[in-house]
């Protein structure tokens, strides 16, 4: 086969994937009110965004939620990966299976199951319910990232540490943690992004006491066009891009 055909095809699909994103970024600087015609360059929508107090509050709420969800899921995820890697215990396959099911099942299935749990045990919907839900759907991704790192790990290192008198806790702290550090950072960034972007699960488990950004955007875009959303989307895009590049950089650097 000639070489230009696959290349042309790849280029075309990449163009289609990026056109909406480019349109969004360009229109975020549009001065026109209607949102469809070009009315000249302007930062008015960014201005409107930061002058909207509820919006800024939702931004902080989302950032704080993503930060805490990423941190907790990295902590628990790393311990889970270590347990799966090091220990033999009953029900290991069940544990693996549950993580796999969480990762594969449609978000909405997880969402309603958590809503049912929270309401039936009389749990107040708000920051804590969001945190528990977000940690749960981030967990499998952290476990996989850390497991991948551990699978290429020299088994003799922990043994040597133990022969030198280290107990499990000391060995984990001085040998394992340094080895899995890049995976921890990558897993944390992945969790952070997943949490920041989630709409489906948050729709079900958030309460009026804690409004987060994706839900605010959701209520805005359901009715008509809101130029502020272009500005907000652009900011989120830049933010995710930085996070993604950071995580790739960390992973690439650690491979050397």
């Amino acid at each position, binding site marked *: 086969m000639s070489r230009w*055909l*696959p290349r042309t*095809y*790849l280029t075309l*699909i*990449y163009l289609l*994937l990026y056109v*909406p*994103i480019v*349109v*969004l970024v360009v*229109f975020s600087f549009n001065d026109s009110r*209607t949102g*469809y015609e070009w009315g000249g360059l302007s930062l008015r929508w960014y201005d409107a965004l930061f002058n909207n107090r509820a919006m800024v509050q939702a931004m902080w709420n989302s950032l704080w939620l993503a930060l805490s969800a990423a941190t907790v899921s990295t902590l*628990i995820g790393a311990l889970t990966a270590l*347990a799966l890697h090091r220990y033999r*215990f009953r029900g290991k396959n069940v*544990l693996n299976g*549950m*993580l796999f*099911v969480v990762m*594969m*099942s*449609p*978000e*909405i*299935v*997880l969402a*309603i*199951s*958590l809503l*049912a*749990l929270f309401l*039936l045990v009389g749990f107040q919907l708000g920051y804590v319910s969001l945190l*528990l839900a977000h940690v*749960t759907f981030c*967990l499998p991704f952290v476990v996989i990232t850390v497991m991948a790192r551990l699978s290429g790990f020299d088994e003799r290192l922990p043994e040597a540490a133990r022969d030198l008198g280290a*107990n*499990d*806790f000391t060995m984990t702290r001085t040998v394992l943690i340094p080895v899995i550090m890049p995976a921890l950072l990558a897993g944390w960034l992945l969790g952070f*992004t997943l949490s920041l*972007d989630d*709409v*489906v699960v948050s*729709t*079900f488990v958030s309460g009026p006491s804690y409004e987060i950004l*994706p839900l605010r*955007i*959701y209520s805005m*875009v*359901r009715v008509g*066009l809101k130029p502020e*959303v*272009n500005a907000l*989307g652009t900011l989120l*895009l830049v933010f*995710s*891009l930085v*996070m*993604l590049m950071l995580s790739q950089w960390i992973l690439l650097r650690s491979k050397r």
Partner: protein
Amino acid sequence: MRSLMQQPFRTAVLVLVWGWLLFLVLAPNLLVVGASVMTRDPASFISLPVTLDAYRQLLNPLYLDVFLHSLYMAAMTTLVCLLIGYPFAWSLSKVAKRHQVLLIFLLIVPFWTNSLVRTYALKLILATNGLLNNALLSMGLIDEPMQLLYTEGAVVIGLVYLLLPFMILPLYSVFDDLREDYLRASHDLGAGRFSTFIHVIVPLTLPGVLAGIMLVLLPAMGLFFVPDILGGSRNLLVGNVIKNQFLDARNWPFGAAASIMLTLAMAFLMFAHRLSKRRIGEEGV
């Protein structure tokens, strides 16, 4: 032999992990199964007696229509993703290795950006006075704007746009593993290009196809915000019905039953995927 000092750490880790998964994964899912066979109750969400009414309601023509329409849109989405993704992954695996890293990166950038915002961006393009209609009008290709938004097509476009990377990535991984010598062997044994494709390439990439279908078909029935933004009230997904039953109509048994149908569909697809992988393993490939 393990010293006693090691035990507390191990026990603490296992209790934490098991506790989390039992309380936030197993228990909630059992609750949903339980709720699906209970009676609807406006005050406490669900109550006795145990009944299969919710499952009977799934067969109610009104809802059956919605489910079939949702399944149809999800199937179209999966088909379009496969038709675009298969040649895409194939082409990608033929590009020089050092470019592949960058190309994969470009593929997952959109995946890392807010899906709600990307769906909204499609609205800017598809609206009646949106960019696509304006462009076609000014080129003289159409005389009056087409109704693109709030159609079945718009929902499918939105879903394809969000889910395409999930089809491409597993396909790319099977094409990446496809060994050139099988293709050469097939050629040496006298098979033409078409015959090689049907008898060698398709069976070897089948696990990737099924993994892709699994990763696209199910979310394509659950992503309720896509019809909300692009589809209007007539093009609903199963996800919209579930959300509506849980958050507005307060009919938990029915919402739970619909969700269990989705879970069963997932189990079926996972089973098919496993089977296809095992078959290839047994044939010694």
